[in-house]
């Protein structure tokens, strides 16, 4: 079937098989490899992307479900060649180790910061509880999200 959707600000169009997963369409056909596959069953969050601004698991979506939607991946989070504050904070605060969970983690955290201006550590931990990181123990990820929230507030004021 033919689908059209907006991918990181650009209209794209594909012919897809009904059983194709959204994650595979992005990675194999769109050259978007930021979203990763870690488990294929919604238990790790590495494949998280925004669908109309809501973070979803692209391994548990069919490609056809993207039709008519606005899809944002880690590649589309930076604007005008300036990284999103979260991307900057993750790098600066040591929240990135192997980096494989990072794109999904940042997408989830970015949605949190869209809705909550200054989340505390507990709120951050709750928000990212569907994103498994095996390297960091989460401590520095929470640091980075706190830091980015502050920076975003400073930028707004």
């Amino acid at each position, binding site marked *: 079937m033919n689908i059209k959707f907006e991918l990181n600000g650009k209209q794209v169009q594909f012919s897809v098989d009904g*059983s194709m997963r959204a994650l595979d369409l992005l*990675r*194999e056909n769109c050259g978007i*490899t*930021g*979203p*990763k*596959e*870690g*488990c*294929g*069953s919604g*238990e*790790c969050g*590495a494949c998280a992307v925004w669908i109309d601004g809501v973070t979803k698991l692209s391994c548990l979506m069919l490609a056809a479900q993207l039709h008519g939607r606005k899809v944002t*991946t880690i*590649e589309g*989070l*930076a604007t005008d*060649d*300036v*990284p999103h504050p*979260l*991307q*900057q904070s*993750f*790098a*600066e605060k*040591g*929240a*990135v*180790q*192997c*980096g*494989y*969970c*990072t*794109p999904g983690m940042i997408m989830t955290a970015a949605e949190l910061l869209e809705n909550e201006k200054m989340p505390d*550590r507990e709120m*951050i*931990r*709750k928000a990212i*509880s*569907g*994103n*498994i*990181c*095996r*390297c*960091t*123990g*989460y*401590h*520095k*990820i*929470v640091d980075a999200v706190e830091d980015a929230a502050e*920076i975003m507030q*400073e*930028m707004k*004021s």
Partner: protein
Amino acid sequence: MVLKRPIYILTASKAGSITSSMNTLLSIQEIGRRSPRFDALDKALGKEHFASDLYPKEMLWAGALRAGIPHGRINSVNTARAEALKGVHCVLTRKDVPGSNRQGFVYWDMPVLCGTKVRHAGDAIALVVAENRQILARALKLIEVDITPLPIIDSMDAALEQKASRVHDLETGNVLKSATITKGDPAEAMSHCDIILEETFFSPVQEHAYIETENGVARFDKDGILHLTVSTQAPFRDRFEIARALGLDHNKIHIINPYLGGAFGGKDGATVQCLLALAAMHVRGRSIKMWWDRKESMLAGYKRHGARMHYKLGAQKDGTLVALQCELDYDTGAYAHLGVEIMALGLEHAGGPYRIANMESKGRCIYTNNPIGGAFRGFGVAQVCFAFEGMMDRLAAKIGMDPLALRRKNALVRGDRNCAGVTMTHSTGMDECLSRLSDHPLWKTRKKWIAAAPPFKRRSVGISAVFNGMGYGRGLADYAIAKVKLTPSGFIRVYNGVSDMGQGNASTFVQIAGEILCQRRETMELIQPDTDRTHPSGSATAGRTTYTYGKALIKACEALRDKLFNRAALMLLVDDGSGFAMIPGGVRHLPSGRDVSLVDLAGMMMPDDRISMAEYLMPTTPEMPMGGETFKLGFPHLIYPFAAHLARVEVDELTGEINVHDYLAFTDGGRVLNPQVFEQQVQGATAQGLGYALFEEVKTREALLETKDFSTYILPTSLDLPDIESHAVETIEHSGPFGMKGIGEVGMNAPLPAVASAMAHAGLPMDHAPFTQERVLAALDGTKRIDHEYKI
């Protein structure tokens, strides 16, 4: 707009596999600076390409048929129906493997494709190459395999039975290796002890659970070169393994090794390499991808060895440790991997970081039909830490001594012989770690905190003291060859020869080069391991990576620096290279105040003159403990990092849930090169260690996996872990680069015993990890859970 720091601007782009820094922070890469990792921003932007992110044009997919039963004789493999499927390029079986068909470090006991026998459910029997994944999946289902089941060896006890069916045809039955390390006269010494304690401990099989599962891409070119891009910890060793198994010339195998999406030991050894190479040999000229999904990774991937540890500890009433006798059994599953070496480290560390004059540790590494045991952070040591620290807590309770004081009383200091008999001649910060911990508020205010427990909660505070030998140990040269180059554009390029699986060694290499050559990160480049471009420098394992390659790199950078001074002297017509200093972007002649830019120097120098190389070999101990000769490699060690951890835990008396409320780690890793990367290692290892303590347990029933995916194998989420406070105890490791030693592993060893210590002091001594709610509730009820359901 007020910003508290500059914004990164994305400018540089990648050329080839060169990773260039993407920020314009004008900092010199200095040792000791808390600087962001070189690789971090690319990864945060989603731009880093891992092996699994490669989808070359006209790529094919390869996949293996797994045995599905744990033990049996293969009668026939019928591939006809699969081969007939449209879109299938080939279906390969044992008969299509040209070489020895054997993989595995030392023992070479693991077939690439099984032809006659299967030894565990994850064994590969056939290999399919197909146009796409859908066809691949269909083809795998069409292969017909006839296997006659053999008796299943699903536990070490079953393996040790007199008439047990043999997993391999060894004269020693299913015992791959047994060994005894002796020091002093433990039996005699035991008879003079005031107190003798005995206990048996069980530690679980643990899954590495790196988020990027095993994968790679291969292509066999018409010129006879096999190119592989693999998520591996040992690209240089892989060439020899592939060559041996498949009858290829290792010089014609080219391996590219991008950043790994985690590994922790699990990508040290054969995963996809030989299967991919075999596929590429049969479908030449096409790129072929193999990527295990999570279930295949859990089925066929390596695990931490489950262990049974029987301990008998003799001590005096004042807390002096006198004698230890222990028996350690490691279940290596169907294949040896590094099981013998892992057991050797268990024997070496069996007595903990303490002075014990008399020790006898006996070990057995045992074959079963269980999933394959292999290397994992804390390599054989994570297991015994649970046991010896458990004995320390039992002893403290028995003699009524403060558990921290007991540990300090016996902690190793320089000049002591450790439990295996190796003299501590290098940095030994064990007591300092404990001393610092004893001054911390989380320890000092523990009684008040415990007393404030809410209803249905029992609070307790535990500590642990651990160590972990660094490097390969004796018998295997722990070497690295570093290369650094001045590029025509005046950049410094580091050729990293050791995989970066996420630990950040590559970034630290840039920092080391920046320190010596005084350069900013935006004028530095990094090449990741590639057997055509970088030099063999061993595997990314054993806490050796930054130490060994770092030492070689310091020498290479100093050689380049001296060369730059001498060439600048030529350009400035001065006597010699003395009186020069490195400055960002160039060199300065201090007496005359004149500068020469690196670009100008690069223009003057011949290409091969712009390169410096150096190598380093880690020292080993000349002392050999009695009984240690039996180990060909990996035993014993000379240099040890140390750590003392504290855990404040709250046990729910209704559910058995343990909440780790606060966590504290003191680590002696010598001089810290980058505090951020240091904390990353401590926190990450602690997280894995807490998973090991609380939830993580690979379960099998009749040697078949029950924890097949991430919904049954329980990893800690962000809600299951506390903030992890990390402090460095900076001794100087004089042999190490700038005084550092590797701490990748030691942090893994401490959380399980720290939580166990808290449990013991809460009146809940645990001998079986992990401390699941069920085990804790059983301990609370004073009833023993029936653990024979899941045999070790």
